[in-house]
C-alpha cells in the first residue's frame, strides 16, 4: 500500500508547485485597502531554480508568504505535487517547504549549540519525543555536512549559534533547511543582510546544494547579478503580475542591462 503510494508520487510529472488564480487584498474594506494580486498564476516545475526580481511592493515576498502559509490567500489554489495545501498551517507546510529568511537569526536557534541545531534539523522528519536530543553516533555525519560550508564550523560543534556571524548563521540555516527531504526550497532575499563576501559565499553554497541535492528552488532577490548568474528561470514581477518570464536558454541570454532597461520601462509607464 505504502509502496504503491510512493510509486504514485514518483510518477507525478506535473509542476511541483502550482499557484492558481491567487487573489490577495490587504486591509479589506478600509481606506488602506491594497489589492496585491487579482489573478496570479505560476507553475514551478521539478528542478527549476527560479530567481524572482521586482521593485518594492511588486508582491515578491507576499507570494512567498502565501506559499509558505504565513499569510492566507483570499481566493485561488496552492497545489504542491498536485495536492491543495490551502488548509495547511505554516508549520505543516514547513515539512515539505524549506525556507531561508533574509534575517540570519530566523533560521537557527541562537541559545543552542551548532550540534544541537544540527540534531534538531535531522529530527525534522522524525519524532521530537523523549529520546536524547543529540545522538553522538551522528557526530561524524554532522561534521561532514558542516564541512561542506567551508567555514570551519565542523570544529565548533559546541559553540552557541548566537555567537556566530551573520554569514556563518545564514550558511548554517541553509544547510539546516536542506538537510531533510523537501519539495521546494524558498529563499527570501537570503543574502540581502550579508556583507558582499558572505553574500557571495552563501549564494555559491545555495547553487551547490540545489545542484547536488537536486532541489527545486524559488529565490526572491534584489541582486540582479545573482538573478542572472544563478538559476535556470527568471521572473520579473510588477504590481502583482509577471512581466517577464524567461527559462533555460532564454534566461541564459539575459544580461543585467536587459533587466535594468525593463525596470526603467516599467517605471516610465507607471510614471514613477
Amino acid at each position, binding site marked *: 500500500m505504502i509502496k504503491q503510494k510512493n510509486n504514485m508520487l514518483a510518477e507525478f510529472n506535473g509542476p511541483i508547485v502550482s499557484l492558481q488564480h491567487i487573489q490577495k487584498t490587504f486591509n479589506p474594506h478600509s481606506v488602506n485597502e491594497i489589492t496585491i494580486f487579482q489573478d496570479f498564476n505560476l507553475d514551478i516545475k521539478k528542478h527549476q531554480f527560479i530567481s524572482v526580481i521586482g521593485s518594492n511592493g511588486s508582491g515578491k515576498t507576499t507570494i512567498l508568504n502565501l506559499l509558505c502559509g504565513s499569510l492566507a490567500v483570499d481566493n485561488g489554489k496552492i497545489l504542491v505535487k498536485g495536492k491543495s495545501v490551502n488548509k495547511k*498551517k505554516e508549520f505543516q507546510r514547513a515539512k515539505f517547504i524549506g525556507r531561508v529568511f533574509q534575517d540570519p537569526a*530566523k533560521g537557527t536557534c541562537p541559545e543552542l549549540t551548532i550540534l544541537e541545531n544540527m540534531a534538531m534539523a535531522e529530527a525534522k522528519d522524525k519524532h521530537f*519525543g523523549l529520546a536524547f536530543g543529540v545522538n553522538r553516533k551522528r557526530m561524524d555525519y554532522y561534521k561532514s555536512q558542516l564541512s561542506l560550508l567551508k567555514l570551519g564550523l565542523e570544529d565548533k560543534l559546541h559553540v552557541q549559534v548566537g555567537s556566530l556571524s551573520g554569514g556563518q548563521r545564514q550558511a548554517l540555516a541553509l544547510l539546516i533547511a536542506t538537510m531533510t527531504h523537501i519539495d521546494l526550497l524558498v529563499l527570501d532575499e537570503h543574502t540581502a543582510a550579508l556583507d558582499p563576501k558572505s553574500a557571495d559565499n552563501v549564494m555559491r553554497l545555495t547553487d551547490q546544494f540545489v545542484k547536488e541535492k537536486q532541489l527545486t528552488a524559488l529565490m526572491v532577490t534584489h541582486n540582479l547579478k545573482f538573478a542572472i548568474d544563478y538559476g535556470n528561470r527568471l521572473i520579473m514581477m510588477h504590481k502583482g503580475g509577471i512581466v517577464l518570464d524567461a527559462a533555460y536558454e532564454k534566461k541564459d541570454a539575459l544580461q543585467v542591462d536587459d533587466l535594468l532597461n525593463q525596470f526603467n520601462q516599467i517605471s516610465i509607464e507607471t510614471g514613477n
Partner: protein
Amino acid sequence: MDVFISLLINIFEEGFIYGIMAIGVYITYKVLDFPDLTVDGSFPLGMCLTGLLVSLGVDPWVSCILSLLSGALAGSITGILHVKFHITNLLSGILVMTALWSMNLVITNDSAVLSFFNKPTIFNSGIGSSFTGVMEDYKVLIMTGVLVIIVKIIIDIYLKTKSGLLLRAAGSNPQFVTSLGRDSGKMKILGLAIGNGLTAMAGGVLGQQANSANINSGTGMVVMALASVIIGTTLFRKIKIMKATTAVVLGSVLYKTCLSLAMLIGLPNKFLKMLMAGIFAVVLISNNILGGRRKRIYDKTKK
C-alpha cells in the same frame, strides 16, 4: 544556638520547597520567555487540593502527583488562551489566576484555611516515619532536599531530550520551530503546563509541611519565584558548570534567607509582602546596572 540552627533548617526547608516552584518558573520565564502570572493561583491550587485529598485520607504522595496535574491543567489553560485565542501573555495569566481563586474556594469548601493535623502526610508516614531520634529534626530538610534534587535532575534530563530542545527553541526562536514543521504554540502550552505543575506541587509539599492549606498563600508567589530565578541565574552566571536549575534553587534559598533575616531583626509581619517586593526590586535594578554593559555588547553582535 539551637534557635539559630532551627532557623537555618527552616530557611533551607522552605527554600527547597519554593525551589521546586522556582524550577517551574525558570521553564516559563527563562526558557519560554513567558512572564506567567498563573503562578499566584496554581500555587494555592496545589496546596488546597493536597489539603483536601490528604484530609480525605488519600495517599500523600498521590496527592502531590494530583496537585502537579491540577497545576499542569491550569498552566495549559493559560497557554491555550494565549496561543489559540491570542490573548497577551500577562492577561492570560491574570485570567486563569483570578478564576483559580474561586476554584480554590470550591476545593476548600469556602474556608480560608484547611487544617489536616493527625492525617498522614509525606513527612509523617511511609518514608517520613522512618526518621527517628536525632534524625527526626532533619527529616523535612532531607526529604525536601532530595525531592528538589530529583525534580532538578528530571528537568535537566528533559531539557536535553529532543522535546526539550524544541521547548528551548520555542522560547528563543519560534520561527525555527515552525521551520522544523512543528507547532511552536504547542510547545508553549507544554512549557506552561510543566511550570505550573511544579508550582502546584511545591504548594502541595508546603501544605503538608505546615499541615494546613491556606487559600491566601498564592499572593506574592510570582514575585517570590521570579526573584529566585533572577537572583540565581544572575549571581551564578559566571559559574559555567552550574546548571541553571541548580542556580534557581540556590536563588530561592538566598531569597528565603533575606526574608528570614529581616523577620529575625524584628520587622513586623505585615511588612513581609512589601519586603518581598522590595528585595525583588533591588535585584532587578542591580541586575540592570550590572547587566547593562553586557547587554549593549550583546545587542551589537545581534545586529
